[in-house]
């Protein structure tokens, strides 16, 4: 749930989602759910010439399982807090 939690804080920020089919979509993150399905708005695709079919698409819903990477805006991620959250998660799992 850590990543879910992180993504929740990134709503309304511009992120780049790299898909497993090598499509890179940049857009405003509108919402994310526990499966890390992602909804993007006002999207633009990297290398539009290669993906002309995406030119008319303005928003999209991405199934979480097809995402390879998500590039986050560094200024909106608190790395120290992220470390802490990771520690907490590990601690919580240790308890289980």
């Amino acid at each position, binding site marked *: *749930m850590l990543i879910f939690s992180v993504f929740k804080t990134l709503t309304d920020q511009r992120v780049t989602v790299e898909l497993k089919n090598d499509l890179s979509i940049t857009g405003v993150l509108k919402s994310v*759910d526990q499966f890390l399905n992602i909804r993007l708005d006002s999207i633009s695709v990297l290398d539009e010439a290669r993906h002309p079919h995406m030119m008319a698409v303005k928003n999209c819903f991405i199934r979480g399982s097809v995402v390879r990477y998500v590039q986050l805006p560094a200024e909106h991620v608190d790395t120290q*807090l992220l470390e802490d959250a990771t520690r907490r998660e590990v601690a919580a799992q240790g308890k289980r």
Partner: protein
Amino acid sequence: MSFFGFERSNLEQEKKKFSEGGLQETEDLAVYTWGEESYDGLGDALLEGGDELNDETFGGTGAVGKDFDFTSQTLPTPVGTTRGRFTPTAEPFRERTPVVERTEPASKPRDRGLSPAPKSLESIWDDKSPFSMLSRAAGHQRVPSNLMKSPFPPSRSPALNAYADHRPLSQQQPISHGINQTGVRTLQEIEAEMRAAQQKRKQQEEILLQVQLQQELQREEELRRQEEFRVQELERQDLQRLQQENLLADRMRARLEQEQQLRLQQQARMSTPRVVSHLAPSPRFNQQHQHQQQILLLQQEQERQQQERLKELQERLRMEELERQLRAQQLSQLQQQQPNLLARRQSPYADTQRRTHSPVIDSQYALFNQQNTQYMPQSIQLQQRLLSEMAQVEFMRDMQGISQAEQEALRVEAMRKIMETERMEERRRRKAAKIAHMSRYNDLMTQSDKDFITRIQVSQLVTQDPYAEDFYAQVYGAILRSRLGLQSQDERVIKFGSSGGVGLGLAQKGSGRRQSAMQKMEAQVERIVNNARLREKEKGLHSLHSLQGALGKTSGRSYKAAPRQLLQVDASSATISGTHPHISKEDGNGAAQEAAKLGREALGQAAGSDGVVRKDPLTQRQTLVVLEGLYDLVLNIEQLRRDQPLEEDEEDEEAFVSWSATYNDLVEQIWMNLKVMLPLETSDPHPFVSLLTPVKGKKILPRLSRHIAPPRMLTLLTLLVACFSQLDVVKHAALLDSLEETPERQDVERQTQAFLGSVLQSILPVVAKAELRVITGLLGLLLDRTNIVISAQTRPGIAMLTLFLSRVEIVKQGMSSAQESSEIPTPAEAQQWQTMFDHLFQLLMSHFVLLFPSTRLIAQPLPVAAPLPPTDILDQPVWQFLAALALHASSDQQSILVTSLREKVLDIVTSVNKGWVADEEERQTKLSNVNLFLHALGLDSSQISV
């Protein structure tokens, strides 16, 4: 007769097949034969020529036997003939079939180049109704005559060609194929072939039957409505008021009627002159038909308005009625005059003039004429409205006796208005169509469907500790809020009683709509969860588990999604033997050494003079382990702080006591883990300094210091000062003076930033409250234990010294203002400080210039003419330090300061004055740097003349 027999057997066969359901098994065969493989292309060849011989073959223009009557359909006047044959009664329902039939011969693409007609129409021939049976029987009767001519290849026999072509049944085609291919054949063969053809045809029919049936049903319904409609129309003509009412009713079925009217018009034109002969198909008709469905909603709206309007009209008409007693007569007259209505409509005003009718009624007549003729119910509404308005005006004009020309102008104006309105209507329709298209999938899921999905999703989100599960979002939100200065509202967690809840993440500072949506969702979730809990109690643990994973599985632990590790090492054994062995070995070694030392001490050799157990410094790994332990403690203690019970609450007295016990315990653990209390000589570097070496060690200090009591922090500070030279940032500071961009330099830079940002920040409050003698002691310690010249050439060193000097300056100011007696240091303490300061000054005296990073950088052997990095920013802390030094210095010391820095200051001032600076910003920085120092001496850069 053979064909009668054939017919009968064929029927039986059909029935049998139908009852057996054998039709479906051949359904997958090709329906259309041309354009497909089974089609041999002979159909095209049939057209080749010889049509001119038709007359000859058929015996010229002489009378043809009854059997051949159907061929008359292909004669130059087929329509008239057909009409004559089939629609003498002109009953609406009956009319239907001829219409369909007529299209059949035209459907043959070979014929006259007409477009292929829908094959579905063929099934009419197979209709079991008595009406269609009649025509089918006629079709079959033709078979023998066909057979008789079969010896002639149809391609060379135009008569047969034309004959075959124009037979309305599709079965003719396969038959003619057979004829073409085999020439003379036996009756059996041909019969068999025909049977096959029959089957094939039936397959086609079967496929089309369903569509056909639907269409038929629809058509029948339409026809029924049509009849009603026509009756109503007649009634309308009889009685205007009644008609108005009917109109309202009709509009409810506007769409269906539209289609009906088209057909009605066609039929009426061709077959039934009796029926409203003035009907004229409008070009607008088709267009409207397309939009019809989409604007139904709009129509309803219109209808309502129209209704009101009509009521008004009615009212007026009633008034009129009273005045005009002749009205009934006129109505009956009207019916007789009906053929003239069209003509009258074209010049209704002339008509009005001629006659003595009420203008309103008259205009109504014109109106209804139009309705009956070219307009659709919807546009009628519009036109009616407009025309009634027009009629009103006209009425007024009439009363005033206005000329025809003016009325004509008015009429043109009205027409223009109508067109305009229609255009607007068109636009609205298009818009409605678009909306309808977009909302195609609206309400595909019902609300309960959505609720169900939400329930499953939410049930998976509910956890025992929502705060911990959603830790990042919660804390990030809190930090963000505090940074924005917002008062933190309630925690963004929905809690359900004591157990479980859902983390909501960041509070959206969005619109009110979103807020209310959130509230709604909260309420719903709460309800859902409570329901789930109730059900769980009822059913045991079944209900929730059944939903678990229904939408897919969440990876609760994110590493599960990580790629499979190549080395699959059992974690439990790894911790014992795999990863930690060297630590335990080292520990063992350490223990052995300690034991040896203890032994030596016991033997009186006194290795560590005052009983200090010397140890090896912490290894990197040990440091990290300790740090991780500290982080866990910090996280725990921070969580504990959040859960702090209210002190005032009496009931929670006990809870508070236990809470503070836990808290104190944690603080104690932290203190122990920081290893501050270990003697200075334990190791080099000291364990505490080792802990500060990694960046995360530096960064944890501010978070720890919050929980550590001030006296302990002072101890910590003392230790830090005592071990100052052991710090990595001091040891490796020389690297920063190189111009080479190396990873090591970058690392030191990063570490230095972290030290200044974290460690110094956490000791700042301690120094800020320290008394003069404490500062004196600390400075003494620093001078004593470190090479102050080296330390002062590091950024942490300069920062530390500046910190001390400024604190003393503040203390001195406090002394002069004499606020609190307790804070005023004794003269002895002041004296001690002065001694210590003199000592510091003495040590640094000959190295003042070297304190500047810029000076040290220039002193470096420059590889090439590498551009110097902007050093003014780096120099700034040094200028600050020197300014602080100057404040404390005596006049002698100040003159020494000035003498040693004279060159540096002059350099800068000269470069500024001569404009040897890149930009305004650099100039400002340089000047402010110099002024920082000069102001402390009571001077200013402007006083210096170069």
